[in-house]
C-alpha cells in the first residue's frame, strides 16, 4: 500500500487490529502445568472503516467469536494491538488501564447469538435495557423510562412491554431487546456475534433489516460475525474469511464473492445454496476435519485440506498480501489459481 492511499483510508478507519493473538493455555494434572496452547486467534490483521459493516465468516471453532471478544476487551489478548479512533486520537484499546475501561465501554457494545442466555430471566425488560444507563449514571429514573421507551420503539417493540420478563417474548423479540440494550449507551461500534444464527429464517430477515436501519439511524459501525455466507453477503460492505485462527482473505463483499483469491473461500462459496434450480453448482468437498487449534498444521494452516496444495504450502506460512486494491489474501498461489466464485 502506498503512502497516499494509506493516509486516505486512515481518515475513515475507526479501528485497526494488528497481529492480534490469543492462546489459551491447556493445563493438566494436579499442579496445573501448561502442556500446550489452543491457538484460538493466531495473528489477525484488519481494519474497520467508520460506518461500514465488516463481515467475519468462518466455520465454528475458527476463532471469530474470540476475535470479537478480544476487540471488546472481554478477554485479554496474548499479543497484538487494537487501535481505536476516539475524538480524533488513536487509542490502543489493549493499553487502556482497567480503571479507565468503564468509560471506554460506552464506545463498543455487543449483540449475542443466543437470545435466551443473553437476557437475565429475573429482570424486567426495563431493568435489562436501563442497566447500562444505570451503571454509567446517565439520566434520572424518569428520563430513563423515556430512553427505554425510545429504544424499544427503535427496535420495533411496544413500549408497554417494558414491565414484562424475558420469558414472555419469542426468540426474535428477545434479540430485539438485546439490540436495544446494546444501543442504550449510544456506542459507535457494535460487535454482532452471530445475531441471527439462532433465529428462524423469516425472523432472520427482519432482524437483519432492523440492524441495517439502525446503522443508518445511529451511524453505527458493525463487526458482523456469522457462519452463513448468504447472510453476510446481504449486510456486509466488506467480508473477512477466517480459518483456524487466521484471516485468509478479506475484500469488498461483491468482489470476494465474485473473485475469491483463496481456495478456502472458494470451497465455502461452493456450499452456498443457489436460488436457481437449473444452475449446477460444483460442491467442493473439503477432505478431512478441521484440525485442532491446539496442534495446527505447519506452513499454511489450510494445506492438509487444500486441493491446490503443493510442497511449499506445508513449509512456509503464506504472507498476508494485498493482491488487488482492497483485496487481501494469504495464499502462496493466489495469482496463479483461477478460482470460481458465485
Amino acid at each position, binding site marked *: 500500500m502506498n503512502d497516499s492511499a494509506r493516509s486516505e483510508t486512515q481518515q475513515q478507519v475507526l479501528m485497526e487490529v494488528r497481529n492480534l493473538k490469543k492462546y489459551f493455555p491447556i493445563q493438566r494434572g494436579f499442579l496445573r502445568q501448561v502442556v500446550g496452547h489452543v491457538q484460538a486467534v493466531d495473528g489477525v490483521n484488519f481494519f474497520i472503516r467508520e460506518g461500514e459493516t465488516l463481515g467475519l465468516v468462518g466455520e465454528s471453532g475458527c476463532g471469530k467469536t474470540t476475535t470479537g471478544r478480544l476487540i*471488546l476487551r*472481554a478477554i485479554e489478548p496474548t499479543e497484538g494491538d487494537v487501535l481505536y479512533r476516539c475524538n480524533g486520537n488513536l487509542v490502543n484499546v489493549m493499553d487502556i488501564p482497567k480503571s479507565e*475501561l*468503564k*468509560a471506554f*465501554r*460506552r464506545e*463498543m*457494545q*455487543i449483540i*449475542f*447469538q*443466543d437470545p435466551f*442466555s*443473553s*437476557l*437475565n*430471566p*429475573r429482570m*424486567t425488560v426495563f431493568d*435489562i435495557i436501563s*442497566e*447500562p444507563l444505570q*451503571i*454509567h449514571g446517565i439520566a434520572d429514573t424518569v428520563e430513563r423510562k423515556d430512553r427505554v421507551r425510545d429504544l424499544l420503539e427503535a427496535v420495533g417493540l*411496544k413500549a*408497554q*412491554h417494558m*414491565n*414484562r*420478563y424475558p*420469558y*414472555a*417474548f*419469542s*426468540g426474535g423479540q428477545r434479540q430485539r431487546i*438485546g439490540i436495544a*440494550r446494546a444501543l*442504550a*449507551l449510544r456506542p459507535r461500534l457494535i460487535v454482532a456475534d452471530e445475531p441471527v444464527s439462532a433465529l428462524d429464517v423469516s425472523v432472520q430477515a427482519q432482524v437483519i433489516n432492523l440492524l441495517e436501519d439502525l446503522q443508518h439511524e445511529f451511524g453505527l459501525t458493525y463487526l458482523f460475525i456469522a457462519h452463513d455466507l448468504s447472510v453476510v453477503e446481504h449486510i456486509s460492505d466488506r467480508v473477512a474469511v477466517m480459518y483456524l485462527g487466521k484471516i485468509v482473505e478479506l475484500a469488498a463483499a461483491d468482489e470476494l464473492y465474485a473473485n475469491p483469491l483463496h481456495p478456502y473461500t472458494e470451497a465455502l462459496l461452493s456450499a452456498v445454496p443457489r436460488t436457481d434450480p437449473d444452475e449446477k453448482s460444483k460442491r467442493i468437498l473439503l477432505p478431512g476435519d478441521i484440525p485442532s487449534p491446539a496442534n495446527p498444521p505447519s506452513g499454511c494452516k489450510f494445506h492438509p485440506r487444500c486441493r491446490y496444495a503443493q510442497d511449499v504450502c506445508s513449509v512456509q506460512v503464506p504472507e498476508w498480501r494485498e493482491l488487488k486494491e482492497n483485496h487481501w489474501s494469504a495464499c502462496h498461489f493466489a495469482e496463479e489459481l483461477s478460482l470460481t466464485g458465485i
Partner: protein
Amino acid sequence: MTTNLEAQSRELNKLYEDLDATIDSDEIGLVEAKRLEAIYGASQWQLIWRKFIRNRTALVGGVIILIYYIAAIFAQFLAPYSLTERFVRYIHMPPQRVHFFNEGKFQPYVYDADLEVDENLRKHYTENKDVVIPITYFVHGETYKLIGLFETDVHLFGTEDGMVALLGTDRQGRDMFSRILYGAQVSLTIGLLGVLMSLTFGTILGVVSGYYGGWIDNLIQRLIELVRSFPSIPLWMALSAAVPDHWPPLRTYFVVTLILSVIGWTWLARQLRGKVLSIRNEDYVLAAKLAGASDARIIFRHLIPATFSHIIVVATLAMPSMILAETALSFLGLGLRPPITSWGVLLKEVQNLQSIGLYPWVFTPALAIVIAILAFNFLGDGLRDASDPYTL
C-alpha cells in the same frame, strides 16, 4: 426430541403473539388486558409461589412449620405452666385424658388422678371420677414476659386447682407439654440461627470462589475439604469441651450455634460455587461486564439473585440436620445444659431404661422433633421443585 421441543416453543411463541394481538386489540376490555399483563409481568417469586401452592405435601409441611414457630414465639402464653413449676403429687403421671362434654355442655375437663404404688414400687395412676378438674381459659399463673416485652401472668388454659398434663409429667412432676413448648424455642431458633450463620459464610465464600476462580477458588475449596475431613462429632466434642461451665446460658447457646455452623457452611459454599460457575458464563453476565458493571454489581445484581431460590431450598433442607445436630450434641451432654431447655436436653434427662419401660410419654420431645424434621423436608422438597419456574 429437538424438533418436538422446537415445535413446543414455536407453539408457545404463537400463543404469546396471539395474546399480544388480543391485548392490543380493542375487542377485550381493560380488565382482561390487565389480567394478561399480570401473566407476562409475573416476577420470579410470583411464579415460584404459583407452582408451590399446587404442591399439597409441601404446603402441609409449610403450615406445620408455621404453627411450630408461632407456638415457639408464644410458648409462655400457650404453656399452662412454667419450665420449672413442679407438682409433687403427680410425679411421672401419664398423659391425662381430656373430656370435652360435662353434663351435655361443652366444658373440657380432666379427672383428678390417684396414685397407687404396687409391690414393685411401680406407680399406677387411676382416674378419680369424683373429682372433676375443669380446664379454664386465660387463667392467671406464673408471671412471664410475652416475647420478652409485655409482662403478664395470663396463660391460654389451665386449672384452678390440681393440674392438667396433656402429655404427662416427668420425674419431678413437671408438665411435659409446657416443657416441649419451651424446648421448641431453643431447638427451632438454634436451627434457624445456625442455618443463617452457615448461609452467610457459605454464600460469601461460595460466590467469591465461583466468580473469581483461580487461586482464590483453589484456596477456598481446599479449606472446605480440610474442614469436611474432620469427623464431625469429635470436632463438636472438642469445641464444646472448650466452652467453660461457668458461662451464662445465653452465651453457651450462641457458641453452640456457632459450633454447629462451622461445618454447615461448607456444604452450601460448594453448592453455590457450582451454581455460580454455570451462571457466570451466561451471556447476560458478559453483557453487564461489557456495559461497565463492577464485580460487586455483577455479584449482587446478577449472580446472587440467580442463586437465591437455591439458597432458600438449601437452607430449608439444612434445618433438619441443624436441629438434629443440636439434639445429638445435647443428648450426649456436649451441647446445651439445663437450665436451658431444648428438645435434646429433654431427651438427655430421660436417658435410662426405666423411662423406656415405665414412662414412655417422657419421649414425646422425640415426636416433636420427628414431626418438625419431616415438615422441613416436605417444605424443602416443594420449594426445590418450585424454585425453578422457568422449566415447564
